[in-house]
């Protein structure tokens, strides 16, 4: 009897619990609207929105390379399955044409679609929730005045139960806190502006912060280095692998122009980021640099000393002469490959961004893992279409995985003080087979849309 009562009680609890979860998880539909006329938006608001869309790098996911801007359909591989980006053009049937501004604001703030469905966090609402109402209004004006495109992405390929969107309510309960950015009164205006851009629309942490097994960013390791499209996104905190210490000025230069003489050229997915940032005013870039420099913190005296010493050494030119007689075990073959294949560019003294970087300065060669070095050597840096860009030939068809291992072993030993990478052969094999998918882009990165931010279709 007692046990029966217990069961009834437990049953009631479960019913209440499940009902509660449903109420928590359930979001109402927001009534559809007739797609607004272009004239209903203020031109300056649209232009402001264009800049914000560039900060958000919306085009990166919502435009399929070679396809129409913002029409979605890009394949986004995740550890959980494949997601296809949605059409965010103002097409009434297949895009967001029937979304009111309130529906758009809710999607950005809470990660909920117009009809009330929870959105997958591949759409980084964990960052976009920070965006102010005013900025969302401008973004809405920009997106709603793009060319409507009729296009429906393929259905997502996610296993049960992840294909049930209600599950996302649980994910949100665990990992998502909504709310616009609140300024830190202890910091100045520039820092706060930077934090707003970096952690909000810029969603830097989406790549540069490591994720847990459920795909959420580890809050305790904010900007401590993550992963993006098969590339390591380097740490932006104190654990940065850059041999020359970053500071506010060098970060500003790098973000402003996409390269820095002491650090090299932005490549991989970062090329697209710096390309997009080109639209921002200097003051915003400076604010981002200020904030990130504060996250990196003051380097240790030793790190600072090493950095200064390296910059002095770099001034006296490359270290070729030391290489040619190096016939040590790991050095022999790797050194010969380096001299024949790499040194012609990497030691010819031509300045950045078109000369090869002195590899003593390379964050990639100094990185904790070999992935970016493997990507660079195998696939190089393709030329951008129709504009000047840094390039590097790829060596995937020349080097076997063992030869690549010899080369990287040599680079690591000769140009850094770091320990050898031990998994190059296997990583390279997995990279080639596509088991580890890598996206390869030119250094300006803007190959997805017809123009920088996809603002005008040709």
């Amino acid at each position: 009897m007692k046990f029966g009562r217990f069961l009834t009680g437990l049953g009631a609890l479960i019913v209440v619990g499940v009902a509660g979860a449903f109420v928590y998880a359930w979001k109402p539909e927001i009534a559809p609207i007739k797609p607004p006329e272009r004239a209903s938006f203020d031109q300056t608001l649209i232009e402001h929105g264009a800049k914000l869309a560039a900060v958000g790098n919306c085009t990166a996911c919502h435009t399929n390379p070679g396809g129409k801007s913002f029409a979605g359909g890009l394949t986004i591989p995740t550890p959980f399955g494949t997601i296809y980006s949605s059409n965010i053009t103002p097409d009434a049937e297949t895009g967001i044409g029937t979304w009111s501004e309130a529906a758009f604001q809710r999607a950005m703030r809470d990660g909920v679609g117009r009809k009330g469905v929870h959105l997958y966090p591949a759409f980084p609402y964990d960052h976009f929730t920070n965006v102010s109402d005013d900025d969302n209004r401008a973004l809405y004006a920009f997106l709603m005045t793009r060319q409507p495109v009729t296009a429906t992405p393929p259905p997502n390929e996610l296993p049960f139960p992840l294909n049930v969107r209600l599950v996302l309510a649980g994910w949100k309960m665990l990992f998502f806190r909504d709310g616009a950015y609140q300024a830190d009164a202890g910091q100045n205006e520039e820092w706060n502006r930077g934090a707003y851009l970096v952690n909000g629309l810029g969603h830097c942490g989406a790549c540069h912060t490591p994720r847990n097994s459920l795909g959420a960013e580890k809050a305790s390791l904010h900007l401590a280095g993550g992963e993006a499209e098969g590339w390591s996104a380097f740490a932006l905190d104190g654990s940065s692998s850059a041999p020359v210490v970053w500071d506010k000025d060098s970060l500003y230069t790098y973000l402003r122009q996409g390269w820095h003489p002491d650090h090299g050229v932005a490549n991989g997915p970062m090329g697209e980021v710096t390309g997009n940032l080109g639209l921002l005013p200097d003051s915003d870039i400076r604010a981002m640099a200020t904030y990130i420099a504060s996250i990196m913190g003051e380097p240790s005296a030793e790190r600072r000393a090493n950095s200064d010493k390296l910059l002095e050494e770099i001034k006296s030119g490359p270290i070729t002469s030391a290489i040619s007689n190096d016939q040590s075990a790991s050095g022999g073959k790797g050194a010969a490959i380096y001299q024949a294949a790499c040194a012609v560019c990497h030691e010819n003294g031509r300045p950045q961004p078109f000369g090869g970087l002195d590899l003593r300065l390379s964050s990639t060669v100094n990185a904790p893992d070999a992935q970016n070095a493997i990507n660079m050597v195998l696939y190089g840096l393709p030329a951008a279409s129709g504009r000047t860009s840094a390039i590097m030939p790829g060596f995937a068809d020349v080097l076997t995985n063992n030869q690549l291992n010899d080369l990287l072993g040599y680079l690591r030993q000769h140009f850094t003080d770091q320990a050898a990478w031990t998994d190059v052969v296997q990583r390279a094999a997995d990279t080639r087979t596509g088991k580890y998918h890598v996206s390869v882009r030119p250094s300006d990165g803007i190959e997805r849309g017809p123009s920088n931010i996809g603002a005008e279709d040709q």
Partner: protein
Amino acid sequence: MKLNVNGSTHEVDADPATPLLYVLRNDLELNAAKFGCGLGQCGACTVMVDGKAIFSCLTPILLLEGREIKTVEGLGTIDSPGPMQQAFIEEQAAQCGYCIPGMMMRAQALLQSKPDASDAEIQVTLEPNLCRCGTHMRILKAVKRARELMKTAAMAPASGERKV
């Protein structure tokens, strides 16, 4: 060390770090591949290794032991040109001609692995190879013709590419 070039094995006496291009031209007197930039940026030095197009100016021979190297000389002879060569002759697809051997080898690598490559694929694949004379349209036309000739050659081996 031994190098397999166009089906024959050559004993080469050169520093293992020597770029393949120099060995081809200076030691083996195979002068099709050209020195352009020496940086892997122009494609004039392109040859095939194991069926893939590579920049011979940046490839030390120590990487090539036991691998099959092919140059334009391996595609056919003056008397019996291979389909790629025949197509370039028929389309008169050369101005100064300096880039042509590289163009041919990259196109050959593409069409060997993908006989039905689309026009767009041909164009994208040839991107790393530069032509300074502006002969691009003829070069593309020649490669498209080669695409057809190679299929015919594959059906009738006697008139086609010399087996090397």
